């Protein structure tokens, strides 16, 4: 593996995303402050935190659509939001962002072309993305008539179809049944094994155990940058849900946080 110039120590994997002293102001309020974190290449990194803690804002900053960002933010070796990154990074917004009046195939075809898939390869890429999110049989259905879970999977597929190096997924498994969730996490693991990097936010703590690393946000600050095992060990909690609660409560009490 090529080592990224931004990571001097040879042992650690290169960082797909490198964040130093990040701050974001939204609506006159500092909603993210002093964030230092690395998202290692080829890993699935979970972004957890209570509602309003700044998960979406951090993701928007990484994909380069967030205004009023301060600090250092390097994505795949380039400053976040650089034109050169736009075909290398895929973003799935928290609410499904696809065209409701188009069919599944039309939506995915459009996003494939935008991501630079040549016209001749579009059909194949679309079929592959449809299979990945298990939407076979719905190809010609208008997206507006899909169920909520199907809709969010189309939105996910629209990012997968261009096969970007970095996938930033904002709560991609919300509203899905346990079987589908497991299958999607299998897909995420497979993508990481294939050399891609994934940053996935979630509310479902069970999913945390399927990540290589976990980032915990609370009120715009990073309260933990850890692994699932370490999280369980340091908190002594019986399951991820309670480990998370323990961490958040500890942070409220003003204790020094494990990093």
């Amino acid at each position: 593996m090529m080592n990224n110039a931004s990571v001097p120590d040879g042992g650690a994997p290169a960082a797909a995303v490198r964040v130093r002293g990040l701050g974001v102001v939204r609506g006159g309020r500092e909603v993210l402050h002093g964030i230092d974190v690395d998202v290692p290449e080829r890993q699935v990194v979970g972004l957890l935190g209570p509602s309003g803690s700044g998960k979406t804002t951090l993701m928007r900053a990484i994909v380069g659509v967030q205004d009023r960002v301060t600090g250092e933010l390097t994505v795949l070796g380039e400053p976040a939001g650089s034109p050169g990154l736009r075909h290398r990074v895929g973003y799935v917004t928290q609410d499904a962002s696809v065209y409701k009046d188009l069919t599944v195939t039309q939506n995915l075809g459009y996003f494939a072309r935008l991501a630079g898939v040549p016209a001749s390869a579009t059909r194949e890429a679309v079929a592959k993305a449809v299979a990945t999110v298990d939407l076979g049989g719905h190809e010609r259905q208008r997206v507006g008539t899909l169920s909520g879970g199907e809709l969010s999977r189309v939105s996910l597929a629209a990012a997968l179809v261009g096969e970007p190096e970095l996938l930033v997924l904002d709560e991609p498994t919300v509203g899905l049944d346990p079987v589908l969730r497991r299958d999607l996490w299998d897909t995420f693991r497979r993508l990481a094994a294939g050399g891609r990097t994934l940053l996935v936010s979630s509310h479902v703590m069970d999913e945390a155990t399927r990540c290589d690393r976990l980032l915990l946000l609370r009120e715009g600050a990073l309260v933990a940058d850890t692994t699932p095992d370490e999280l369980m060990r340091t908190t002594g909690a019986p399951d991820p849900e309670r480990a998370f609660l323990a961490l958040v409560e500890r942070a409220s009490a003003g204790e020094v946080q494990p990093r």
Partner: protein
Amino acid sequence: MNLTWTTAARVLAQLRFDRRTIVLILVLPCLLLGLIAWMFRGTPVLDQFGPMLVGLFPLIVMFLVTSVATLRERQSGTLERLMTTPLGKGDFVAGYAIAFATLALVQALVVVGFATAVGMDVAGPMWLVIVVALLDAVLGSCLGLAASALARTEFQAVQMMPAIIFPQLITCGLIMPRDQMPELLEWLSRVFPLTYAVEAMQDLAAGAEWVDVRGAVAVIIMFIVGAVVLGVSTLRRRTP
């Protein structure tokens, strides 16, 4: 450039499913023209005012349709997503402009064809009436693109219509010949694009040729370019 056409094709695919918008664009102007033809049957009113209305209705309708369509894109989160892709801001605006210009061409043909069928007799060349009607419709959609940047909700987008179109309607020479207006209003009318659209149509109704209206046509095209530039420059990749 490639992504411009891809985007135009996508917008047209969306419109194909949207029956109500198609009806609004193609049927409504014809219906209104038909009413006027009926109201003033046996008089030369349709010959005098028909060309102006043929230019006016498409402009207003396209303004509304485009501003709501692009606003929907902003609200649905798809614009945010598009801004993370290699799609350029110019590609986005030009894609929309091309899609709606295609629709505008169909509209101009249908509306002018219908007006002729119900008895509109234009002294000037008919192809010029179609060209000016097309340009008016394109202008309407480009103004709609630019205006949607100022709106936050679909309701606000609709409110833009009276705010931007009505002052132009009042001073464009439709209600009162412009040379009879107070000087200040006459000056004001000079900076509005609709004035030139109506002027060109009035001249064509009175038998003008290409050389007589090319000045007005040039001004309309400048306004179209200006509206596109405004639309691109008000689009932001990074939003609060």
